[in-house]
């Protein structure tokens, strides 16, 4: 997030919420939005799915799934045509406006109506609301990024914020809401194939030299590595022989899980380190028992770049150990140097040394100040509630000229529905924690598919309780929920459930840059299960 959650209740005058089921997926972020609404802030929701927060919206638009670039360009078209753009910001702080306008001028509200199915006048109203109520914050989640056009979508969102000067001021900005509690931190720490901690590229000779000297080693690899999905494929092709998995469950979370299983089974050696015997652990050669968040010390970094202390409350069960301890002990067995840590605090001291944005982070400060928002380059620095205050990291902010592209797999005669996947309020990701929490499981014990009543009639549901949902990759049987929440032609399945995993159906078409699978769209057919 460029900005901070507490700024929403304090400063924001307009929210544009897209691809985020905020009230269900991030309830306590939603509470800041509601508070803002009470003092008069406007809410625009643009989402193909009916999301709860849509009911609170001043305007609620439901585009055809996968048309985000088109309607984002449409909003910009209206803002520029009606002279609502922030000229001063554009002149002083950005470049590339002309090239962007060359593309955006083609996206008139009428053309966007044809592509996305949003009434032209509604798009105009939304554009005016956003541009005329500053500071305006854009909130988005996986609904925007899980597409083959995910990177384009995110760039278009940045375009819109810059066009209206909604960057570098409190209560505005571009704010991705992270689904898992430490996605932000895992990225910050270099848990990515192309960057060292602090997003220092592995291809940069300076970064390489820096880490070689900090770690006391030579010959750090200069080629970016493989992503999760690429590693799974490489395992299937025999390129990758060993995989070490710490606390992830790709057998539920990855696209096309039949394929994932086949690939993982080909590995010569698979290690899974987890708190539960997950679906992925069943395929392992060695399983190591780890400590849960309540049983270890450390830090998490939440979605607004907020670094906070995790504190040990109780001992882990049996012989389970914290993941950091396990890595240090394994390093010793391997004869690897530089892992002689006796506490997470010592590890953080090393992180601060090599990661400029964490330079001023110490446990002492976190204990005293509660949390620190990066960048916090030195121990004197108070942290950074919002980014890009006077300038962008690269100097001038760049507008990107982006055309709309269709999704990789569109519905056709054989597979006439668009399947989109997501989360529910009560379950969490692969479900290995929430499904073992009685109250959460009781609220949402069973997988289901949401279908519009008119589609139910079309497929001849006739009172059947279950349907078979099939794509080109697999099929699952699930209970039906009829609801207007979902548009005709679209079906929704939450992905938490291993017994009817939505990801048996999804496909691994990747965004060319961010390499995110296109979870939000694939083509399926739906047939009633007779006698159910």
């Amino acid at each position, binding site marked *: 997030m460029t900005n901070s959650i507490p700024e929403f209740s304090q400063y924001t005058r307009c929210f544009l919420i897209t691809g985020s089921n905020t009230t269900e997926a991030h309830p306590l972020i939603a*509470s800041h939005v509601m508070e803002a609404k009470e003092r008069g802030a406007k809410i625009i929701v643009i989402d193909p799915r009916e999301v709860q927060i849509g009911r609170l919206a001043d305007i609620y638009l439901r585009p055809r799934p996968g048309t985000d670039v088109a309607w984002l360009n449409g909003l910009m078209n209206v803002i520029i045509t009606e002279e609502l753009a922030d000229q001063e910001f554009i002149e002083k702080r950005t470049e590339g406006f002309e090239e962007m306008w060359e593309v955006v001028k083609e996206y008139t509200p009428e053309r966007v109506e044809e592509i996305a199915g949003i009434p032209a006048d509604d798009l105009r109203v939304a554009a005016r609301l956003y541009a005329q109520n500053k500071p305006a914050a854009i909130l988005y989640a996986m609904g925007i990024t899980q597409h083959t056009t995910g990177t384009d979508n995110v760039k278009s969102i940045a375009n819109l914020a810059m066009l209206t000067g909604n960057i570098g001021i409190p209560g505005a900005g571009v704010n991705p809401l992270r689904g898992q509690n430490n996605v932000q931190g895992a990225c910050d720490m270099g*848990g990515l194939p192309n960057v060292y901690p602090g997003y220092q590229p592995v291809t940069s000779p300076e970064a390489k030299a820096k880490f070689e000297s900090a770690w006391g*080693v030579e010959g750090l690899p200069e080629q970016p590595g493989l992503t999760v999905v690429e590693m799974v494929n490489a395992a299937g092709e025999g390129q990758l022989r060993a995989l070490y998995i*710490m606390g992830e469950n790709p057998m539920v979370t990855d696209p096309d899980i039949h394929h994932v299983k086949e690939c993982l089974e080909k590995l*010569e050696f698979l290690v899974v380190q987890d708190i539960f015997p997950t679906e992925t652990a069943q395929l392992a050669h060695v399983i190591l028992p780890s400590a849960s968040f309540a049983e270890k010390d450390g830090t998490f970094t939440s979605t607004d770049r907020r670094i906070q202390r995790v504190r040990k409350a109780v001992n882990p069960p049996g012989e389970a150990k914290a993941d950091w301890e396990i890595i240090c002990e394994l390093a010793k067995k391997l004869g690897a140097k530089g892992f002689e840590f006796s506490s997470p605090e010592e590890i953080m001291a090393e992180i601060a040394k090599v990661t400029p944005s964490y330079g001023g982070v110490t446990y002492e400060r976190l204990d005293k100040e*509660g949390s620190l928002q990066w960048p916090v380059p030195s121990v004197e620095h108070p942290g950074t509630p919002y980014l890009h205050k006077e300038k962008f990291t690269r100097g001038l902010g760049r507008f990107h000229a982006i055309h709309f592209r269709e999704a990789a797999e569109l519905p056709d005669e054989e597979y006439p529905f668009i399947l989109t996947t997501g989360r529910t309020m*009560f379950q969490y990701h692969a479900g290995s924690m929430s499904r073992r*929490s009685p109250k959460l499981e009781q609220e949402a014990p069973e997988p289901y598919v949401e279908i519009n009543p008119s589609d139910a009639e079309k497929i001849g549901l006739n009172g059947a309780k279950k349907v078979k949902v099939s794509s080109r990759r697999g099929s699952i049987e699930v209970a039906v929920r009829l609801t207007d929440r979902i548009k005709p032609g679209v079906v929704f399945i939450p992905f938490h459930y291993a017994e009817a995993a939505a990801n048996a159906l999804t496909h691994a078409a990747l965004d060319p840059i961010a390499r995110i699978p296109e979870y939000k769209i694939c083509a399926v057919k739906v047939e009633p299960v007779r006698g159910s």
Partner: protein
Amino acid sequence: MEYKNVLTVCPYCGAGCGLYIQVLDGEIVGVLPAKEHPVSRGKLCIKGWNATAFVNHPDRLKKPLIREGGSFREASWDEALSLIAEKLLQIRDTYGPQAIGFFSSAKCTNEENYLLQKLARSFFKTNNVDHCARL
């Protein structure tokens, strides 16, 4: 009887709400919201209130397990870690560093993610390290 409230962070979504784990004689007895927290301000959602419900689940792994044929047998840490070290070194020496991959985790701490990528890069000399950020 020894009672304490331990301030920590919710393990579920990225909002990062603050909560106290209530501990009585070394056992978790409940969760309390943290009033002073700038995001959660003394509130929690249903997931946060149930943040520790899975911690003592009977399914928790308690010992290292090694596959033998179609099933797993319990092993000591020493045996399990020695086996892992031996296998990883053997695979690296036979097929090269790019034949090994690591998944770090959005559920683990910063310190743990840091260490795993450091092990992959500095010792095994591979950048094959990623997590489910995209998923």
